[in-house]
């Protein structure tokens, strides 16, 4: 793998000076080393073939809506492509094209209001989940935090990106939590969407009449391709816990004082079908604070202090013991309610042949289940693998016990990881270095499980090819949203980004999964962002690209708000023609490369009328 950086595009001196006048000289830079920190991004290698996106022409750090608006207007006047990033998470925050002006919104980091009675928070772009949650806890409230982690922007998830998170069964999905918002439109106009202009409050972003929430995002957002969102209000949710959760220890070995009336469980099932049944029932019973699935590999990785410790436990087949498992947290506000929730959960576990592997309440069950489980491990993993497992497992257990850790501590670690949303990111980067994701449609729980089953089969092939790491193939992550109205299970593929074979073929795993979602009608995957995927999906999904592209063209006529992860009609339609001409036989890697080349050459800054012509 190379570490080359694509070409440098200089900003005219006068423009640079004008930008400096807007944000102040301490808040602008064109130092190559600084700019490259914006270009060096997770999964850039899968998009560009190396670790860098395009180098921005400069980075500015506005502190206010007025400054953002002035910058966007200047960009429009000077035809400079721009892209805003808040906390950023991977290549989505930058652009493969060199020369964009990067707006880094980190100075806009204030929680502007928390309306306790009405359970609403108003935030600026750089307010992260952990900060908002900590403040909300003090008021008996909580917020939805996405799986990318508690250090990510609440506003970005709500307005511009996606929104899956492990507590979604009780805290919804980021799109659906968005209330009023403030939008510096692509041409620099400022629009406050929703009730603010009338009421000085932000409690809704819908109306008057239709909802403009519908043009700024769908299940995915525009990823910075439709101007800049500078404020937004989000729903908060009741929190039946303390104002602060006391933690001791260091990652990953946290210990936590479990709040009264909260219990965390890891529940395993004989197979996918029982998991299906369990999820549907828990959703409709409305008893869960969190219900999600993390595969054994990332879960063990997240809990272990080293990769070696992970490997020792992993290699023996222990994971088979809880391959089909769900983490459930119940959080009641009264003992009465807890008794109801526990009772219903037990009923559902019994009816769905579940096994409570660990819980924050019951140590004994862990030993009983593990003992009973040995027979199952032998059957599933084989006697040799089991024999290999026993020494590291015994060592681990003895060490844990000597350190005063009881099995319930692992449930507590699980609990805090789910509440604070830090299990996924820690687990998934731990043993491979990088990952890409696929499948993950937002759909009925039944179909989520079908996605996971299919994803596992597809992944096995790429593990055998040596492209993806062997995480047991089944590495679905996701859960329920809105009391189980819909769910998501995305299939994570772990790879070594320093290995050229992985980099060259990592995309092939995603290609296979997208193909499966189309051919087997498994709902549209979360990969359906960016031109190559639009080109592939759109003919199977009502030619939706036409409408998304029309929105982009209507509201960003100068095509300056970088749309590398949003949409470019001319690129999508030329790729669609290639796919059609290929009669279904095409190399998606080539298509992605072509899309990137095309975007770099003609994307940002090329007026949409010209492209359409």
């Amino acid at each position, binding site marked *: 793998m190379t570490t080359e950086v694509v070409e440098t595009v200089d900003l005219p001196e006068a423009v640079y000076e004008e930008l400096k006048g807007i944000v102040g000289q301490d808040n602008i830079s064109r130092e190559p080393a600084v700019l490259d920190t914006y270009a060096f991004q997770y999964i850039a290698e899968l998009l560009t073939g190396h670790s860098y996106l395009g180098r921005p022409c400069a980075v500015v750090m506005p502190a206010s809506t007025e400054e953002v608006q002035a910058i966007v207007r200047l960009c429009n006047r000077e035809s400079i492509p721009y892209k805003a990033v808040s906390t950023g998470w991977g290549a989505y925050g930058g652009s493969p094209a060199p020369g964009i002006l990067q707006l880094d919104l980190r100075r806009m980091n204030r929680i502007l209001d928390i309306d306790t009675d009405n359970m609403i928070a108003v935030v600026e772009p750089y307010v992260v989940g952990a900060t908002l949650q900590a403040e909300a806890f003090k008021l008996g409230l909580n917020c939805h935090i996405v799986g990318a982690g508690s250090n990510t922007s609440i506003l970005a998830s709500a307005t511009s990106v996606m929104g899956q998170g492990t507590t979604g069964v009780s805290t919804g999905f980021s799109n659906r939590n968005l209330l009023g918002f403030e939008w510096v439109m692509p041409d620099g106009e400022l629009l406050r969407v929703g009730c603010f202009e009338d009421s000085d409050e932000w409690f*809704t972003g819908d109306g008057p009449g239709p909802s403009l929430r*519908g043009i700024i995002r769908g299940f995915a957002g525009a990823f910075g391709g439709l101007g800049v969102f500078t404020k937004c209000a989000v729903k908060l949710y009741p929190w039946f816990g303390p104002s602060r959760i006391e933690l001791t220890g260091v990652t990953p070995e946290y210990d936590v004082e479990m709040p009264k009336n909260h219990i965390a469980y890891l529940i395993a099932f004989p197979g996918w079908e029982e998991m299906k049944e369990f999820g549907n029932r828990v959703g409709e019973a409305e008893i869960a604070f969190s219900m999600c699935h993390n595969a054994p590999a990332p879960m063990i990785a997240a809990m272990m202090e080293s990769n070696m410790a992970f490997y020792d436990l992993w290699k023996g087949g222990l994971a088979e013991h809880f391959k089909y498992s769900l983490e459930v947290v119940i959080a009641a506000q*009264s003992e009465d309610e807890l008794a109801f929730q526990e009772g219903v959960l037990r009923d*559902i576990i019994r009816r769905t042949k579940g096994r409570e592997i660990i819980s924050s309440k019951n140590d004994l069950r862990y030993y009983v289940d593990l003992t009973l489980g040995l027979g199952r491990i032998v059957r599933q993993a084989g006697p040799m693998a089991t024999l290999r497992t026993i020494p590291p497992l015994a060592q681990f257990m003895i060490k844990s016990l000597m350190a005063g850790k009881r099995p319930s501590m692992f449930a507590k670690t699980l609990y805090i990881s789910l509440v604070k949303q830090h299990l996924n990111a820690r687990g998934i980067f731990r043993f491979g270095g990088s990952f890409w994701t696929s499948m993950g449609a937002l759909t009925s729980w039944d179909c989520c499980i079908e996605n996971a089953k299919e994803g596992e089969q597809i992944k096995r092939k790429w593990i055998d090819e040596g492209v993806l790491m062997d995480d047991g193939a089944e590495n679905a992550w996701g859960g329920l949203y809105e009391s189980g109205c*819909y769910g998501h299970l995305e299939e994570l593929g772990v790879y070594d980004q320093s290995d050229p074979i992985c980099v060259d073929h990592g995309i092939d795993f995603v290609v296979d999964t997208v193909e499966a979602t189309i051919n087997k009608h498994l709902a549209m995957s979360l990969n359906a962002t960016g031109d190559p995927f639009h080109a592939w999906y759109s003919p199977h999904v009502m030619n939706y690209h036409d409408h998304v592209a029309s929105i982009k063209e209507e509201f960003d006529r100068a095509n300056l708000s970088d749309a590398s992860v949003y949409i470019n009609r001319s690129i999508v339609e030329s790729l669609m023609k290639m796919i059609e001409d290929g009669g279904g036989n095409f190399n998606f890697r080539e298509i992605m490369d072509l899309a990137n080349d095309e975007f770099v050459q003609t994307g940002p800054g090329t007026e949409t009328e010209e492209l359409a012509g």
Partner: protein
Amino acid sequence: MGVEGLSEAVSSGSVVTQKELMEDYGAGNGRKGALPAAVVFCETADDVVGLTKWARENGRKILPVSSAPPHESAVVQKEGYVVCDLSRMKRIVRADRRNRVALAEVGVTFEELDGALERVGLRAMTPLAPRTGKSVVASYLDRTPTLVPRAQWDLSDPLLCTEVIMGSGKLFRTGCSSGPGTLEEQWATGQAQKNPMGPSAFDFFRIVQGSRGSMGIVTWASMKCELRPRVHELLMLPSDDLAPLIRIVYGIAHARWGEECLILDSNNLTRLTGVPGMPAFALLVGVAGFDYRPEQRVSYQKRGIEGIISSEGARVSRSIAGVGGRRMLQVITSPSDPYWKGSPAEHADVYFLTTMNRAPDFVSVIDETCKKEKFDRAQVGLYLQPQLGGRVTHFEATVFAPREEADRMTRALAEAAAAKGAYFSRPAGNWDDLAYRDKPLLVETFRRTKKIFDPDGVMNPDVLFCKEVV
């Protein structure tokens, strides 16, 4: 302008041009407006596509209607319209207990849907005592508030996926119903059209919802349903004062307890039940148990809610003016025939969104405006509906008076409420223009959005933001 070629454009639908049959849709029965050029009873999506293409080619405008008459807001106001009457599209395509979802055509009414849902153990989320003949999908498309705030995760709920014919004549499906695959192919993999978002990076259903047909015509929709309770009770709390009821509503919302939750004033309570002597206000809170431990659920929630109520020094009443909880529950959740508000000639509504803690300010606005306008305050009914889990409140004032007087008053009330910060999220009636006053960029943004999906301005183009804004 004639309607030549219209019958051929709608293959299975029927075209009506007799004046007496069209009066329900426009000028007629004492209502202002204009007569449509024709009424087309569409029976399939293809009919709607055909009608739309015909309208584009012939410079006509389309007003979609899906409920049974009398029509209130869906009335032709200007010349040149063809009415697209969808009330014959009555298929309930799916009532899916496992996924707690139904998929129904746009002509299906609450009473029709509820019958189908009851058979599979579900119930529809209903607005307050909807009139019989009211289309479920139309009600949801209008973001009419439903009674169970706990179950509403988004103001768009319970609407999920939709099939829409755009003004361009394109048929489109929203959310996960858009594909890949047909509905049948999606069902085969366990899908149930439950995710309304998308496809991809836009939520077209949000653009159509609230647009009163100006962005497209919906032919079917999937919708969230609730499990049918096995035990269901209504707690009633009368009060002369709104303030304690508001604190109780917040307490319940923060506990995520209860089902139905709403506040009605004496006038509305009397109109709904037909019983006089009602208290100034009453908070109504449903408590239900479903398939799992229903009695236990009801028991702990009742204890909890009663605890919140007693902290305000109040007590739940077994009956209000002799009306028991069971009957009251039946009244508020069932379709109403005759409609409890009377005919459109006998009342007019003004409604807006606010937060519950601001409701007393708006009650004062109603009191003061009635006084100023010398209107009998006793002829105004109030309905406060917490929405979105209690974060937002629908505030509705109904003026019970002959229409002209009712219109005069709703305008006055709307003006006064606007001055106090009312947000008219669902503009209607003779106060709809207030929603767009002094918001030129917002109006322009809506108009640009409409242009994308309805380039020729075929779809109901004389409402909402399309109207000239003062």
